[in-house]
Protein backbone atom coordinates (compact mmCIF):
# COMPACT_ATOMS: atom_id res chain seq x y z
CA UNK A 1 0.00 0.00 0.00
CA UNK A 2 2.71 2.41 0.97
CA UNK A 3 4.72 1.77 -2.16
CA UNK A 4 1.65 2.30 -4.32
CA UNK A 5 1.14 5.61 -2.61
CA UNK A 6 4.66 6.61 -3.51
CA UNK A 7 4.71 5.22 -7.04
CA UNK A 8 1.57 6.96 -8.27
CA UNK A 9 2.65 10.55 -7.54
CA UNK A 10 6.12 9.77 -8.92
CA UNK A 11 4.69 8.41 -12.17
CA UNK A 12 2.37 11.36 -12.45
CA UNK A 13 5.24 13.75 -11.83
CA UNK A 14 7.38 12.25 -14.59
CA UNK A 15 4.40 12.17 -16.90
CA UNK A 16 3.95 15.92 -16.41
CA UNK A 17 7.66 16.57 -16.89
CA UNK A 18 7.73 14.63 -20.14
CA UNK A 19 4.62 16.45 -21.33
CA UNK A 20 6.30 19.79 -20.58
CA UNK A 21 9.47 18.83 -22.42
CA UNK A 22 7.51 17.58 -25.43
CA UNK A 23 5.31 20.63 -25.87
CA UNK A 24 8.30 22.96 -25.50
CA UNK A 25 10.74 21.22 -27.76
CA UNK A 26 8.68 19.39 -30.32
CA UNK A 27 7.21 22.33 -32.30
CA UNK A 28 10.69 23.80 -32.75
CA UNK A 29 12.30 20.51 -33.76
CA UNK A 30 9.48 19.83 -36.18
CA UNK A 31 10.10 23.18 -37.89
CA UNK A 32 13.87 22.73 -38.07
CA UNK A 33 13.74 19.11 -39.29
CA UNK A 34 11.07 19.92 -41.84
CA UNK A 35 13.27 22.60 -43.38
CA UNK A 36 15.58 19.76 -44.51
CA UNK A 37 12.85 17.54 -45.89
CA UNK A 38 11.02 17.53 -49.19
CA UNK A 39 7.36 18.48 -49.42
CA UNK A 40 6.42 14.84 -49.80
CA UNK A 41 8.38 13.80 -46.73
CA UNK A 42 6.79 16.54 -44.65
CA UNK A 43 3.36 15.28 -45.62
CA UNK A 44 3.93 11.55 -45.47
CA UNK A 45 6.40 11.02 -42.63
CA UNK A 46 6.08 13.93 -40.23
CA UNK A 47 8.03 12.24 -37.44
CA UNK A 48 10.97 10.99 -39.48
CA UNK A 49 14.38 12.62 -39.26
CA UNK A 50 15.52 14.32 -42.45
CA UNK A 51 17.38 11.96 -44.78
CA UNK A 52 20.09 14.43 -45.59
CA UNK A 53 21.09 17.91 -44.55
CA UNK A 54 21.18 20.38 -47.38
CA UNK A 55 20.74 24.11 -47.23
CA UNK A 56 19.11 24.61 -50.63
CA UNK A 57 15.93 25.97 -49.12
CA UNK A 58 17.91 28.43 -47.00
CA UNK A 59 19.96 29.58 -49.97
CA UNK A 60 16.73 30.01 -51.91
CA UNK A 61 14.97 32.23 -49.37
CA UNK A 62 18.02 34.44 -48.98
CA UNK A 63 18.68 34.73 -52.70
CA UNK A 64 15.11 35.27 -53.82
CA UNK A 65 13.17 36.96 -51.07
CA UNK A 66 15.13 39.87 -49.62
CA UNK A 67 15.55 37.82 -46.52
CA UNK A 68 18.94 39.38 -45.89
CA UNK A 69 17.33 42.81 -45.95
CA UNK A 70 14.67 41.88 -43.39
CA UNK A 71 17.34 40.39 -41.22
CA UNK A 72 19.49 43.52 -41.43
CA UNK A 73 16.45 45.67 -40.58
CA UNK A 74 15.66 43.53 -37.57
CA UNK A 75 19.27 43.58 -36.46
CA UNK A 76 19.66 47.35 -36.86
CA UNK A 77 16.44 48.18 -35.01
CA UNK A 78 17.09 45.70 -32.19
CA UNK A 79 20.73 46.65 -31.64
CA UNK A 80 20.29 50.42 -31.91
CA UNK A 81 17.23 50.52 -29.66
CA UNK A 82 18.96 48.29 -27.12
CA UNK A 83 22.14 50.36 -27.04
CA UNK A 84 20.33 53.70 -26.76
CA UNK A 85 17.97 52.32 -24.11
CA UNK A 86 20.84 51.01 -22.04
CA UNK A 87 22.60 54.38 -22.18
CA UNK A 88 19.62 56.57 -21.31
CA UNK A 89 18.04 54.23 -18.76
CA UNK A 90 21.41 53.61 -17.10
CA UNK A 91 21.75 57.35 -16.70
CA UNK A 92 18.28 57.63 -15.22
CA UNK A 93 18.62 54.46 -13.15
CA UNK A 94 21.95 55.62 -11.76
CA UNK A 95 20.49 58.94 -10.66
CA UNK A 96 17.48 57.22 -9.09
CA UNK A 97 19.76 54.84 -7.20
CA UNK A 98 22.42 57.27 -6.01
CA UNK A 99 20.94 60.72 -5.52
CA UNK A 100 18.14 62.49 -3.74
CA UNK A 101 16.29 65.21 -5.53
CA UNK A 102 12.81 66.74 -5.48
CA UNK A 103 10.03 64.58 -6.94
CA UNK A 104 12.32 61.56 -7.10
CA UNK A 105 9.80 59.00 -5.87
CA UNK A 106 6.93 60.46 -7.88
CA UNK A 107 8.99 60.37 -11.04
CA UNK A 108 10.17 56.80 -10.51
CA UNK A 109 6.63 55.67 -9.72
CA UNK A 110 5.34 57.34 -12.90
CA UNK A 111 8.01 55.64 -15.00
CA UNK A 112 7.38 52.20 -13.56
CA UNK A 113 3.60 52.50 -13.60
CA UNK A 114 3.68 52.66 -17.41
CA UNK A 115 3.91 48.87 -17.20
CA UNK A 116 0.27 48.85 -16.19
CA UNK A 117 -0.87 50.27 -19.49
CA UNK A 118 -0.94 47.62 -22.23
CA UNK A 119 1.31 48.93 -25.01
CA UNK A 120 -1.29 47.93 -27.60
CA UNK A 121 -3.79 50.42 -26.18
CA UNK A 122 -1.36 53.22 -27.02
CA UNK A 123 -1.13 52.16 -30.66
CA UNK A 124 -3.12 54.99 -32.22
CA UNK A 125 -1.47 57.93 -30.37
CA UNK A 126 1.98 56.48 -31.10
CA UNK A 127 1.06 55.94 -34.75
CA UNK A 128 -0.08 59.57 -35.07
CA UNK A 129 2.95 60.82 -33.13
CA UNK A 130 5.33 59.13 -35.58
CA UNK A 131 3.43 60.60 -38.53
CA UNK A 132 3.67 64.07 -36.99
CA UNK A 133 7.39 63.61 -36.38
CA UNK A 134 7.76 62.47 -39.98
CA UNK A 135 9.26 59.14 -39.00
CA UNK A 136 6.35 56.79 -39.62
CA UNK A 137 7.29 53.83 -41.79
CA UNK A 138 11.00 54.23 -41.00
CA UNK A 139 13.44 52.20 -38.95
CA UNK A 140 14.11 55.35 -36.89
CA UNK A 141 10.46 55.53 -35.86
CA UNK A 142 10.37 51.87 -34.89
CA UNK A 143 13.60 52.31 -32.92
CA UNK A 144 12.04 55.16 -30.92
CA UNK A 145 8.98 53.06 -30.15
CA UNK A 146 11.12 50.13 -28.97
CA UNK A 147 13.14 52.44 -26.74
CA UNK A 148 9.91 53.58 -25.12
CA UNK A 149 8.51 50.05 -24.75
CA UNK A 150 11.54 48.89 -22.78
CA UNK A 151 11.58 51.85 -20.43
CA UNK A 152 9.97 50.58 -17.25
CA UNK A 153 11.63 47.14 -17.35
CA UNK A 154 15.15 48.40 -18.11
CA UNK A 155 14.87 51.18 -15.59
CA UNK A 156 13.72 48.73 -12.93
CA UNK A 157 16.59 46.32 -13.57
CA UNK A 158 19.25 49.00 -13.93
CA UNK A 159 18.20 51.06 -10.92
CA UNK A 160 18.41 47.97 -8.72
CA UNK A 161 21.79 47.14 -10.17
CA UNK A 162 23.19 50.61 -9.42
CA UNK A 163 21.60 50.58 -5.97
CA UNK A 164 23.63 47.48 -5.07
CA UNK A 165 26.94 49.33 -5.61
CA UNK A 166 28.32 50.69 -2.31
CA UNK A 167 27.92 54.46 -1.93
CA UNK A 168 31.39 54.67 -0.43
CA UNK A 169 32.92 54.39 -3.90
CA UNK A 170 31.25 57.60 -5.01
CA UNK A 171 32.18 59.35 -1.80
CA UNK A 172 35.83 58.42 -2.26
CA UNK A 173 35.74 59.49 -5.89
CA UNK A 174 34.22 62.84 -4.97
CA UNK A 175 37.06 63.48 -2.55
CA UNK A 176 39.51 62.72 -5.33
CA UNK A 177 37.69 65.34 -7.39
CA UNK A 178 35.90 63.12 -9.90
CA UNK A 179 33.18 64.86 -11.89
CA UNK A 180 29.57 63.72 -12.04
CA UNK A 181 30.02 62.05 -15.41
CA UNK A 182 33.32 60.42 -14.45
CA UNK A 183 31.70 58.85 -11.39
CA UNK A 184 28.92 57.46 -13.55
CA UNK A 185 30.93 56.25 -16.49
CA UNK A 186 34.26 55.22 -14.93
CA UNK A 187 33.09 53.83 -11.59
CA UNK A 188 29.42 52.88 -11.46
CA UNK A 189 28.59 51.80 -15.00
CA UNK A 190 31.28 49.08 -15.15
CA UNK A 191 30.15 47.77 -11.76
CA UNK A 192 26.53 47.60 -12.87
CA UNK A 193 27.59 45.13 -15.56
CA UNK A 194 25.19 42.41 -14.40
CA UNK A 195 22.14 44.59 -14.67
CA UNK A 196 23.33 46.01 -17.97
CA UNK A 197 23.77 42.58 -19.51
CA UNK A 198 20.44 41.32 -18.16
CA UNK A 199 18.57 44.36 -19.42
CA UNK A 200 20.35 44.19 -22.79
CA UNK A 201 19.41 40.58 -23.39
CA UNK A 202 15.81 41.23 -22.45
CA UNK A 203 15.62 44.31 -24.66
CA UNK A 204 17.33 42.68 -27.63
CA UNK A 205 15.19 39.55 -27.58
CA UNK A 206 11.96 41.51 -27.07
CA UNK A 207 12.77 43.86 -29.92
CA UNK A 208 14.05 41.15 -32.24
CA UNK A 209 10.76 39.30 -31.73
CA UNK A 210 8.41 42.29 -31.67
CA UNK A 211 5.54 42.07 -34.12
CA UNK A 212 2.62 44.29 -33.12
CA UNK A 213 4.19 47.73 -33.56
CA UNK A 214 6.42 46.60 -36.41
CA UNK A 215 3.40 45.46 -38.42
CA UNK A 216 1.45 48.60 -37.57
CA UNK A 217 4.20 51.16 -38.13
CA UNK A 218 6.01 49.81 -41.18
CA UNK A 219 4.32 49.36 -44.51
CA UNK A 220 7.03 49.38 -47.16
CA UNK A 221 9.20 46.39 -47.84
CA UNK A 222 12.46 48.29 -47.43
CA UNK A 223 11.87 48.69 -43.68
CA UNK A 224 10.20 45.32 -43.02
CA UNK A 225 11.54 43.32 -40.09
CA UNK A 226 11.71 39.53 -39.90
CA UNK A 227 8.63 38.93 -37.71
CA UNK A 228 6.54 41.09 -40.02
CA UNK A 229 7.87 39.24 -43.04
CA UNK A 230 6.30 36.15 -41.48
CA UNK A 231 2.81 37.26 -42.37
CA UNK A 232 3.70 37.26 -46.05
CA UNK A 233 5.14 33.77 -45.96
CA UNK A 234 2.00 31.94 -46.80
CA UNK A 235 1.52 33.79 -50.02
CA UNK A 236 5.20 33.87 -50.90
CA UNK A 237 6.00 30.25 -50.24
CA UNK A 238 2.62 28.84 -51.21
CA UNK A 239 2.85 25.08 -50.83
CA UNK A 240 6.61 24.98 -50.79
CA UNK A 241 6.71 23.88 -47.20
CA UNK A 242 10.45 23.28 -47.13
CA UNK A 243 11.20 26.93 -47.86
CA UNK A 244 8.51 28.03 -45.44
CA UNK A 245 10.16 26.07 -42.66
CA UNK A 246 13.62 27.27 -43.65
CA UNK A 247 12.44 30.87 -43.36
CA UNK A 248 10.80 30.14 -40.03
CA UNK A 249 14.00 28.51 -38.75
CA UNK A 250 16.02 31.61 -39.62
CA UNK A 251 13.63 33.70 -37.53
CA UNK A 252 13.53 31.51 -34.43
CA UNK A 253 17.22 30.59 -34.36
CA UNK A 254 18.77 33.80 -32.96
CA UNK A 255 16.55 33.68 -29.89
CA UNK A 256 17.39 30.04 -29.28
CA UNK A 257 21.12 30.68 -29.85
CA UNK A 258 21.27 33.60 -27.43
CA UNK A 259 19.35 31.50 -24.95
CA UNK A 260 21.65 28.52 -25.21
CA UNK A 261 24.72 30.74 -24.74
CA UNK A 262 23.36 32.78 -21.82
CA UNK A 263 20.76 30.46 -20.34
CA UNK A 264 20.85 31.64 -16.77
CA UNK A 265 20.80 35.29 -17.67
CA UNK A 266 17.91 34.89 -20.07
CA UNK A 267 15.94 32.98 -17.45
CA UNK A 268 16.68 35.65 -14.92
CA UNK A 269 15.76 38.52 -17.21
CA UNK A 270 12.52 36.88 -18.28
CA UNK A 271 11.59 36.05 -14.72
CA UNK A 272 12.04 39.72 -13.94
CA UNK A 273 9.95 40.66 -16.94
CA UNK A 274 7.15 38.48 -15.64
CA UNK A 275 7.20 40.33 -12.38
CA UNK A 276 6.28 43.46 -14.18
CA UNK A 277 2.65 42.42 -13.98
Amino acid sequence: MDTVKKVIPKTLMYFILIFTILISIFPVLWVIFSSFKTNAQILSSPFALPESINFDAYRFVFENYNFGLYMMNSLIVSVVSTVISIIIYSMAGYVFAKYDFPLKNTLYALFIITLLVPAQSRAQPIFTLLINMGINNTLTGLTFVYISLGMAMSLFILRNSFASIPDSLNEAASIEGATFIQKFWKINFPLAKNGVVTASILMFLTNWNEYFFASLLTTSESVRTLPVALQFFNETFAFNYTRLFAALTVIILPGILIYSIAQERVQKSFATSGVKG
Partner: protein
Amino acid sequence: MENLDGDKHTKMGPVDSGKRVPFSIKTKKRKKPTKMEQKEYKGIYLFLLPAIIVFLLFNFLPILTIIYTSFTSWDGFNPPSFVGLQNFVNLINEGSFLISVKNLIYWSFLAGIVHVGFGVLIAFILYEKPFGWKFTRSVFMIPNVISAAAWALIFRFIFDNDMGIINSTIRMVFPNFNIQWLSQSPYAFWTVTLTWLFFAVIVTLIVYNELLSIPDELIEAAEMDGAKKWDVITKIQLPMTRKSIGTSVIASITARVAMYEQIALTTNGGPGDDTMNLPIMLVNSINNMNYGYANAIGFVMIIFGILTLVGINKLFRMNEKL
Protein backbone atom coordinates in the same frame (compact mmCIF):
# COMPACT_ATOMS: atom_id res chain seq x y z
CA MET B 1 17.66 36.15 -1.15
CA GLU B 2 19.74 33.33 0.15
CA ASN B 3 20.35 30.42 -2.07
CA LEU B 4 19.39 27.51 0.05
CA ASP B 5 20.03 24.49 -2.07
CA GLY B 6 23.42 25.56 -3.32
CA ASP B 7 22.27 25.46 -6.91
CA LYS B 8 24.07 28.19 -8.69
CA HIS B 9 21.62 28.29 -11.55
CA THR B 10 19.01 29.77 -9.34
CA LYS B 11 21.20 32.33 -7.74
CA MET B 12 19.60 35.65 -8.27
CA GLY B 13 21.48 38.89 -8.30
CA PRO B 14 20.36 42.21 -6.92
CA VAL B 15 17.73 42.47 -9.61
CA ASP B 16 14.93 40.74 -7.85
CA SER B 17 16.03 40.35 -4.30
CA GLY B 18 13.18 41.47 -2.16
CA LYS B 19 11.72 43.52 -4.95
CA ARG B 20 9.45 41.12 -6.70
CA VAL B 21 6.52 43.47 -6.60
CA PRO B 22 7.70 46.58 -8.38
CA PHE B 23 4.50 48.41 -7.61
CA SER B 24 5.36 48.72 -4.00
CA ILE B 25 7.90 51.35 -4.73
CA LYS B 26 10.28 51.65 -1.90
CA THR B 27 13.32 53.78 -2.19
CA LYS B 28 15.91 53.68 0.48
CA LYS B 29 15.56 56.56 2.93
CA ARG B 30 18.72 58.60 2.80
CA LYS B 31 20.12 61.41 4.80
CA LYS B 32 19.73 64.96 3.61
CA PRO B 33 21.59 65.70 0.38
CA THR B 34 25.11 66.86 1.07
CA LYS B 35 26.46 70.05 -0.44
CA MET B 36 28.34 67.93 -2.91
CA GLU B 37 25.13 66.30 -4.00
CA GLN B 38 23.29 69.57 -4.30
CA LYS B 39 25.98 70.88 -6.59
CA GLU B 40 25.27 67.94 -8.79
CA TYR B 41 21.60 68.72 -9.43
CA LYS B 42 22.45 69.93 -12.90
CA GLY B 43 23.95 66.58 -13.75
CA ILE B 44 21.02 64.77 -12.16
CA TYR B 45 18.39 66.45 -14.28
CA LEU B 46 20.53 66.21 -17.38
CA PHE B 47 20.75 62.46 -16.81
CA LEU B 48 17.00 62.20 -16.31
CA LEU B 49 16.10 64.29 -19.33
CA PRO B 50 16.13 61.60 -22.05
CA ALA B 51 13.98 59.25 -19.94
CA ILE B 52 11.57 62.09 -19.15
CA ILE B 53 11.24 62.96 -22.84
CA VAL B 54 10.54 59.33 -23.77
CA PHE B 55 8.03 59.11 -20.95
CA LEU B 56 6.19 62.28 -21.99
CA LEU B 57 6.13 61.53 -25.73
CA PHE B 58 5.35 57.82 -25.71
CA ASN B 59 3.51 57.29 -22.45
CA PHE B 60 2.06 60.38 -20.88
CA LEU B 61 0.76 62.15 -23.99
CA PRO B 62 -0.62 58.95 -25.55
CA ILE B 63 -2.57 58.15 -22.39
CA LEU B 64 -4.03 61.66 -22.28
CA THR B 65 -4.87 61.31 -25.98
CA ILE B 66 -6.58 57.98 -25.39
CA ILE B 67 -8.73 59.32 -22.59
CA TYR B 68 -9.65 62.54 -24.38
CA THR B 69 -10.24 61.21 -27.90
CA SER B 70 -12.23 58.20 -26.72
CA PHE B 71 -15.04 60.72 -26.22
CA THR B 72 -14.65 62.12 -29.72
CA SER B 73 -15.14 61.19 -33.31
CA TRP B 74 -11.77 61.48 -35.01
CA ASP B 75 -10.29 60.44 -38.34
CA GLY B 76 -6.76 61.71 -37.71
CA PHE B 77 -6.97 64.54 -40.26
CA ASN B 78 -9.77 66.78 -39.03
CA PRO B 79 -9.74 67.87 -35.41
CA PRO B 80 -11.56 65.47 -33.07
CA SER B 81 -15.19 66.43 -32.38
CA PHE B 82 -16.71 65.70 -29.01
CA VAL B 83 -19.44 63.04 -29.12
CA GLY B 84 -19.80 62.21 -25.45
CA LEU B 85 -20.25 58.53 -24.71
CA GLN B 86 -21.22 57.69 -28.29
CA ASN B 87 -18.12 55.51 -28.93
CA PHE B 88 -18.81 53.43 -25.85
CA VAL B 89 -22.51 53.11 -26.69
CA ASN B 90 -21.51 51.93 -30.17
CA LEU B 91 -19.06 49.46 -28.66
CA ILE B 92 -21.69 47.90 -26.44
CA ASN B 93 -24.00 47.57 -29.42
CA GLU B 94 -21.36 45.90 -31.55
CA GLY B 95 -21.44 42.11 -31.58
CA SER B 96 -17.66 41.83 -32.05
CA PHE B 97 -17.06 43.85 -28.89
CA LEU B 98 -19.35 41.70 -26.77
CA ILE B 99 -17.65 38.56 -28.08
CA SER B 100 -14.23 40.15 -27.44
CA VAL B 101 -15.17 40.86 -23.85
CA LYS B 102 -16.62 37.37 -23.42
CA ASN B 103 -13.43 35.86 -24.89
CA LEU B 104 -11.29 38.03 -22.64
CA ILE B 105 -13.20 36.86 -19.58
CA TYR B 106 -12.90 33.19 -20.64
CA TRP B 107 -9.21 33.59 -21.41
CA SER B 108 -8.60 35.45 -18.16
CA PHE B 109 -10.06 32.57 -16.18
CA LEU B 110 -8.10 30.04 -18.20
CA ALA B 111 -4.94 32.13 -17.70
CA GLY B 112 -5.48 32.65 -13.98
CA ILE B 113 -6.42 29.06 -13.26
CA VAL B 114 -5.01 26.64 -15.85
CA HIS B 115 -1.99 28.60 -17.10
CA VAL B 116 -0.82 29.79 -13.69
CA GLY B 117 -1.86 26.49 -12.11
CA PHE B 118 0.31 24.56 -14.55
CA GLY B 119 3.23 26.93 -14.01
CA VAL B 120 2.94 26.54 -10.24
CA LEU B 121 2.70 22.77 -10.56
CA ILE B 122 5.93 22.67 -12.57
CA ALA B 123 7.60 24.96 -10.01
CA PHE B 124 6.67 22.56 -7.20
CA ILE B 125 7.86 19.58 -9.23
CA LEU B 126 11.18 21.28 -10.01
CA TYR B 127 11.56 22.01 -6.30
CA GLU B 128 11.56 18.25 -5.67
CA LYS B 129 14.51 17.98 -8.07
CA PRO B 130 13.43 14.83 -9.88
CA PHE B 131 15.63 13.28 -12.57
CA GLY B 132 15.89 15.69 -15.50
CA TRP B 133 14.56 18.74 -13.68
CA LYS B 134 17.27 21.04 -14.97
CA PHE B 135 16.71 19.93 -18.53
CA THR B 136 12.98 20.51 -18.16
CA ARG B 137 13.56 23.98 -16.81
CA SER B 138 15.90 24.77 -19.69
CA VAL B 139 13.67 23.64 -22.53
CA PHE B 140 10.47 24.99 -20.99
CA MET B 141 11.94 28.44 -21.68
CA ILE B 142 12.37 27.89 -25.43
CA PRO B 143 8.85 28.96 -26.49
CA ASN B 144 9.42 32.25 -24.70
CA VAL B 145 12.62 33.21 -26.49
CA ILE B 146 10.96 32.79 -29.87
CA SER B 147 8.97 35.56 -31.52
CA ALA B 148 5.30 35.28 -30.58
CA ALA B 149 4.53 35.80 -34.26
CA ALA B 150 6.71 32.83 -35.26
CA TRP B 151 5.22 30.72 -32.47
CA ALA B 152 1.71 31.54 -33.69
CA LEU B 153 2.67 30.57 -37.22
CA ILE B 154 4.24 27.32 -36.02
CA PHE B 155 0.97 26.46 -34.31
CA ARG B 156 -0.95 27.34 -37.42
CA PHE B 157 1.17 24.83 -39.35
CA ILE B 158 0.99 22.17 -36.65
CA PHE B 159 -2.80 22.35 -36.77
CA ASP B 160 -2.98 22.77 -40.55
CA ASN B 161 -5.34 20.32 -42.17
CA ASP B 162 -3.03 19.41 -45.09
CA MET B 163 0.52 19.57 -43.77
CA GLY B 164 -0.06 19.77 -40.02
CA ILE B 165 1.41 17.09 -37.85
CA ILE B 166 -1.73 16.75 -35.72
CA ASN B 167 -3.96 15.76 -38.57
CA SER B 168 -1.28 13.68 -40.32
CA THR B 169 -0.92 11.68 -37.12
CA ILE B 170 -4.66 11.23 -36.65
CA ARG B 171 -4.98 10.15 -40.29
CA MET B 172 -2.57 7.30 -39.69
CA VAL B 173 -5.43 5.75 -37.71
CA PHE B 174 -8.48 7.41 -39.24
CA PRO B 175 -7.60 8.06 -42.90
CA ASN B 176 -10.65 10.22 -43.56
CA PHE B 177 -10.13 12.60 -40.67
CA ASN B 178 -10.64 16.26 -41.61
CA ILE B 179 -10.88 19.16 -39.21
CA GLN B 180 -9.84 22.71 -39.97
CA TRP B 181 -8.74 23.44 -36.43
CA LEU B 182 -8.34 27.17 -36.93
CA SER B 183 -11.27 27.93 -39.17
CA GLN B 184 -14.02 25.76 -37.76
CA SER B 185 -16.21 26.59 -34.80
CA PRO B 186 -15.79 25.71 -31.91
CA TYR B 187 -12.27 24.34 -32.44
CA ALA B 188 -10.69 27.69 -33.36
CA PHE B 189 -11.16 29.19 -29.91
CA TRP B 190 -9.51 26.23 -28.23
CA THR B 191 -6.71 25.91 -30.76
CA VAL B 192 -5.82 29.58 -30.24
CA THR B 193 -5.97 28.96 -26.49
CA LEU B 194 -3.49 26.08 -26.83
CA THR B 195 -0.85 28.41 -28.29
CA TRP B 196 -0.28 29.83 -24.78
CA LEU B 197 -2.20 27.76 -22.23
CA PHE B 198 0.62 25.49 -21.04
CA PHE B 199 3.59 27.72 -21.81
CA ALA B 200 3.91 29.10 -18.33
CA VAL B 201 7.66 29.13 -17.77
CA ILE B 202 7.66 32.68 -16.40
CA VAL B 203 5.15 31.68 -13.74
CA THR B 204 7.33 28.67 -12.96
CA LEU B 205 10.49 30.76 -12.60
CA ILE B 206 8.87 33.38 -10.38
CA VAL B 207 7.22 30.85 -8.07
CA TYR B 208 10.25 28.55 -8.03
CA ASN B 209 12.52 31.36 -6.84
CA GLU B 210 10.03 32.25 -4.14
CA LEU B 211 9.91 28.59 -3.08
CA LEU B 212 13.69 28.52 -2.71
CA SER B 213 13.53 31.54 -0.43
CA ILE B 214 11.41 29.72 2.15
CA PRO B 215 13.80 28.81 5.00
CA ASP B 216 14.53 25.08 5.17
CA GLU B 217 14.26 25.16 8.95
CA LEU B 218 10.61 26.07 8.69
CA ILE B 219 9.82 23.00 6.62
CA GLU B 220 12.07 20.75 8.72
CA ALA B 221 10.38 21.95 11.90
CA ALA B 222 6.97 21.23 10.45
CA GLU B 223 8.08 17.76 9.38
CA MET B 224 9.43 17.10 12.89
CA ASP B 225 5.98 17.96 14.20
CA GLY B 226 4.61 15.23 11.98
CA ALA B 227 3.42 17.30 9.02
CA LYS B 228 2.88 15.30 5.83
CA LYS B 229 4.17 16.39 2.45
CA TRP B 230 0.69 17.61 1.57
CA ASP B 231 0.50 19.71 4.75
CA VAL B 232 3.85 21.30 3.96
CA ILE B 233 2.59 22.23 0.51
CA THR B 234 -0.80 23.57 1.53
CA LYS B 235 0.03 25.09 4.90
CA ILE B 236 3.52 26.46 4.30
CA GLN B 237 4.66 26.59 0.70
CA LEU B 238 1.48 27.73 -1.04
CA PRO B 239 0.66 30.50 1.48
CA MET B 240 4.26 31.70 1.45
CA THR B 241 4.42 31.88 -2.34
CA ARG B 242 1.04 33.60 -2.43
CA LYS B 243 2.45 36.93 -3.58
CA SER B 244 4.40 35.55 -6.50
CA ILE B 245 1.40 33.48 -7.55
CA GLY B 246 -0.72 36.62 -7.40
CA THR B 247 1.86 38.51 -9.45
CA SER B 248 1.81 35.67 -11.98
CA VAL B 249 -1.98 35.80 -12.23
CA ILE B 250 -1.86 39.54 -12.87
CA ALA B 251 0.91 39.14 -15.45
CA SER B 252 -0.88 36.32 -17.30
CA ILE B 253 -4.22 38.10 -17.40
CA THR B 254 -2.58 41.31 -18.56
CA ALA B 255 -0.93 39.29 -21.32
CA ARG B 256 -4.40 38.10 -22.40
CA VAL B 257 -5.63 41.70 -22.59
CA ALA B 258 -2.75 42.47 -24.94
CA MET B 259 -2.76 39.16 -26.88
CA TYR B 260 -2.34 39.95 -30.56
CA GLU B 261 0.09 37.81 -32.57
CA GLN B 262 -1.48 34.52 -31.50
CA ILE B 263 -4.72 35.66 -33.10
CA ALA B 264 -3.62 37.97 -35.91
CA LEU B 265 -1.43 35.27 -37.43
CA THR B 266 -3.76 32.32 -36.96
CA THR B 267 -7.45 33.20 -37.21
CA ASN B 268 -7.49 37.01 -37.28
CA GLY B 269 -10.58 36.86 -35.10
CA GLY B 270 -12.46 34.25 -37.12
CA PRO B 271 -14.29 32.05 -37.86
CA GLY B 272 -17.07 34.60 -37.59
CA ASP B 273 -16.02 36.45 -34.46
CA ASP B 274 -15.13 33.30 -32.51
CA THR B 275 -11.63 34.42 -31.55
CA MET B 276 -12.14 38.19 -31.75
CA ASN B 277 -10.41 40.28 -29.10
CA LEU B 278 -9.77 43.90 -28.20
CA PRO B 279 -6.32 44.42 -29.81
CA ILE B 280 -7.58 43.00 -33.12
CA MET B 281 -10.59 45.34 -32.98
CA LEU B 282 -8.30 48.24 -32.10
CA VAL B 283 -6.00 47.63 -35.07
CA ASN B 284 -9.01 47.28 -37.38
CA SER B 285 -10.34 50.63 -36.14
CA ILE B 286 -6.98 52.30 -36.76
CA ASN B 287 -6.94 50.88 -40.28
CA ASN B 288 -10.47 52.25 -40.80
CA MET B 289 -9.27 55.69 -39.66
CA ASN B 290 -11.74 55.48 -36.80
CA TYR B 291 -9.34 56.82 -34.20
CA GLY B 292 -11.83 57.89 -31.54
CA TYR B 293 -13.28 54.39 -31.61
CA ALA B 294 -9.81 52.80 -31.48
CA ASN B 295 -8.97 54.80 -28.39
CA ALA B 296 -12.26 53.93 -26.74
CA ILE B 297 -11.17 50.28 -27.13
CA GLY B 298 -7.74 51.22 -25.72
CA PHE B 299 -9.48 52.87 -22.79
CA VAL B 300 -11.47 49.69 -22.10
CA MET B 301 -8.20 47.67 -22.18
CA ILE B 302 -6.59 49.99 -19.66
CA ILE B 303 -9.61 49.83 -17.34
CA PHE B 304 -9.69 46.04 -17.55
CA GLY B 305 -5.97 45.95 -16.68
CA ILE B 306 -6.43 48.17 -13.64
CA LEU B 307 -9.46 46.19 -12.42
CA THR B 308 -7.43 42.99 -12.72
CA LEU B 309 -4.55 44.47 -10.76
CA VAL B 310 -6.76 45.74 -7.95
CA GLY B 311 -8.95 42.62 -7.86
CA ILE B 312 -6.11 40.09 -7.80
CA ASN B 313 -4.23 42.19 -5.28
CA LYS B 314 -7.22 41.93 -2.95
CA LEU B 315 -7.86 38.27 -3.71
CA PHE B 316 -4.30 37.22 -2.88
CA ARG B 317 -3.94 39.76 -0.07
CA MET B 318 -0.71 40.82 -1.73
CA ASN B 319 -0.22 43.93 0.37
CA GLU B 320 -0.28 42.02 3.64
CA LYS B 321 2.66 40.33 5.23
CA LEU B 322 2.13 36.56 5.32
